[in-house]
């Protein structure tokens, strides 16, 4: 192992991420190379100093009061949990055909029977239409059929901060446009595969997830989704910096997670 090789492993060694073989070879090199040994010593000392200083300067002066406040809040949550009736529904979206027929005329809401697999299997809390913030009547616009041009896709992708792919998991982007929903300008992207459809709504700013959905939350892979069941359909809200509303039709086996933007790659 030469000096360059040894220095390439520097941070892996300091972070204890190097393999045993690499670590042994680096050690062997350091035994014979004063220069590299000094670099290693300096970098290790800097790392230890920073870790130590970070720890000592970041203690929690009010940890106890913080814990106390949390316990009170947990009491409240426990109390609410005892009150809310939750009913379990094995298969709430029995008639997909009907759903689709209405979807053609009512676009989003009814087209949004949500049947995604990972986001599907859990208790259901249905919200009656009267309590729903979703206003069907506001939206009568039907998206034009046909595929999206590359330029349109790029424009939508830019204005909606949604990294748009022409194809996701075998689904092809068949439609993309903007529309006003719930008083907010949203991007609406439709992916299709045969007669299976996924609709993705993206509101780029200013859209707050309604408070009453807080109990209708699911966590998948550490990410949080809020769902809203209404008229036998489901809308799923997920926030990733900006709001994304996701819905799928026709197939509960569609995995919706690949359709989400990921902050790590934006």
């Amino acid at each position, binding site marked *: 192992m030469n000096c360059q090789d040894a220095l390439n492993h520097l941070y892996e060694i300091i*972070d204890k991420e190097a393999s045993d073989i690499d670590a042994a070879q680096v050690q062997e090199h350091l035994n014979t190379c004063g220069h590299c040994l000094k670099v290693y010593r300096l970098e290790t000392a800097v790392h230890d100093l920073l870790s130590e200083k970070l720890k000592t300067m970041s203690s929690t002066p009010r940890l106890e009061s913080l814990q106390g406040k949390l316990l009170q809040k947990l009491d409240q949550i426990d109390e609410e949990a*005892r009150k809310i009736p939750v009913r379990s529904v094995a298969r709430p979206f029995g008639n997909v055909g009907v759903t689709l027929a209405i979807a053609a005329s009512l676009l989003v809401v009814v087209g949004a029977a949500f049947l995604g697999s990972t986001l599907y299997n859990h208790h259901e809390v249905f919200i009656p239409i009267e309590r729903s913030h979703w206003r069907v009547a506001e939206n009568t616009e039907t998206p034009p059929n046909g595929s999206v041009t590359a330029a349109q896709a790029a424009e939508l992708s830019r204005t909606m901060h949604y990294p748009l792919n022409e194809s996701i998991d075998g689904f092809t982007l068949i439609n993309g446009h903007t529309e006003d929903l719930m008083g907010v300008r949203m991007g609406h992207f439709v992916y299709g595969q045969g007669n299976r459809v996924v609709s993705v709504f993206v509101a780029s700013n200013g859209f707050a997830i309604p408070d009453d959905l807080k109990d209708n939350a699911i966590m998948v892979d550490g990410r949080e989704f809020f769902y809203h069941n209404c008229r036998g359909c489901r809308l799923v809200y997920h926030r990733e910096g900006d709001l994304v509303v996701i819905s799928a039709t026709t197939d509960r086996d569609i995995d919706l997670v690949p359709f989400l933007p990921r902050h790590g790659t934006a």
Partner: protein
Amino acid sequence: MAGPESTQNEKRKSFEREAMPHMDALYRTALRMTKNESDAEDLVQETMIKAYRFWDKFETGSNCRAWLFKIMTNIFINDYRSKSRAPVAVDVDDIDDNYLYGQLATQSDDDNPERQLFAKIFDKDVRKAIEELPEDFRLVVILSFLEGFAYQEIAEIADLQLGTVKSRLHRGRKLLQKRLLDYAITNGYVKEKSK
């Protein structure tokens, strides 16, 4: 037989036993990310409440600490990070890998170049250097330096590729070293090496 009441009690007990001990660590990371105590407290509180709501989704026996950090990171990114979404231009490529050593080691015959730097480094310098790191770098640096998470754990917590974690950590380190050295030079603890 376990009714809803006792299930709820069980949930509460196991949450207090397994999750609450990590509040301290969550807070210190939150403090470095939000840069102020009141936001840090809010962030930790929100994280714990969310974790409690999802406690039945947490798989017993898996890494509770990493799970909590992942929840907190998501909340931070969604609600607390700077409003500007524009990527921060950071040019660290001109800092070569031996930058720190090159600056310090050749100044004297001192066998311990680190002594020159550390003798006078104050907490406030470290805090400033950390807080001035771009958020993306700061997050991985803190998760590694302060919390000691492994690269793979950081990748899962921050939803990043392993390679991205490594490169951000590397660049974050270089930036941190450069800032600290700059402070040291500005304050006269260390002489600037003539170019």
